[in-house]
């Protein structure tokens, strides 16, 4: 079983085999509804624009599974929403990324790369952890996707080379992406 065995559906409902991306460096991410407290679309789009000519793409999988667990907003948190489709990288059909109905692709990714905790240096890390402990403690069990914008890097040969939690901003991944290009 490898990453190219998976077939997913585009946001237009068309089946797409990940084998079509063979030889490219992939950043696979579960994107969030537009008002998530850490919208990372902008940086994902920046990475995509910067590296796409070198055989890199971002694959976004919208999921709204975490909406109900959003940490309380306060002044430090950006008070805006992002228009979902302000990005030009491929977006796929909305679906679950954790739990019984999780898309097989995400089951595979989380098996390949385990959860190693949030980056506590990130300003939202403690609040995110607190919100999960309070509202969805089960989400913290095991290696499942914990939150929106969990990112996986896939090398040109299909190896899942890294997992980056929501507490890693996309631009922080630039160095790792360049190593794979």
């Amino acid at each position, binding site marked *: 079983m490898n990453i190219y065995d998976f077939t997913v559906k585009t946001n237009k409902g068309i089946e797409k085999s990940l084998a079509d991306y063979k030889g490219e460096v992939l950043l696979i991410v579960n994107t969030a509804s537009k*008002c998530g407290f850490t919208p990372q679309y*902008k940086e994902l789009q920046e990475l995509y624009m910067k590296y796409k000519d070198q055989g890199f793409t971002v694959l976004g999988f919208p999921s709204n599974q975490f909406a109900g667990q959003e940490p309380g907003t306060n002044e430090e948190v950006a008070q805006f*929403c992002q228009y979902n489709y302000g990005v030009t990288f491929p977006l796929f059909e909305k679906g679950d990324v954790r739990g019984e109905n999780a898309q097989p692709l995400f089951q595979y990714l989380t098996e390949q790369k385990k959860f190693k905790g949030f980056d506590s240096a990130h300003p939202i890390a403690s609040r995110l952890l607190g919100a999960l402990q309070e509202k969805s403690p089960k989400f913290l069990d095991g290696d499942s996707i914990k939150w929106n914008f969990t990112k996986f890097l896939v090398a040109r040969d299909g190896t899942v080379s890294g997992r980056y939690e929501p507490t890693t901003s996309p631009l922080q991944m630039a160095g790792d992406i360049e190593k794979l290009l």
Partner: protein
Amino acid sequence: MVKVYSISNCPWCDKVKKYLKAKQIDFTEYNIEEDEAARDMCYKISGDLTVPVTTIDGKAFVVSFDKAKLDELLGL
């Protein structure tokens, strides 16, 4: 005329609109999910598709619900 660029189900957009209403400021709302021309305009103004964006002249603008900046923009 004050313009507010928004999307649906956007709590921060709602707050800006409520705030403007409370201050009795007339404004026109543009939902960039539904209105492609407004989406392009919003992008032109702020260089992003983040909302709410509040502007009068399309040059000076405020992203998000930021009371201090809104007051400054609107001369309150």
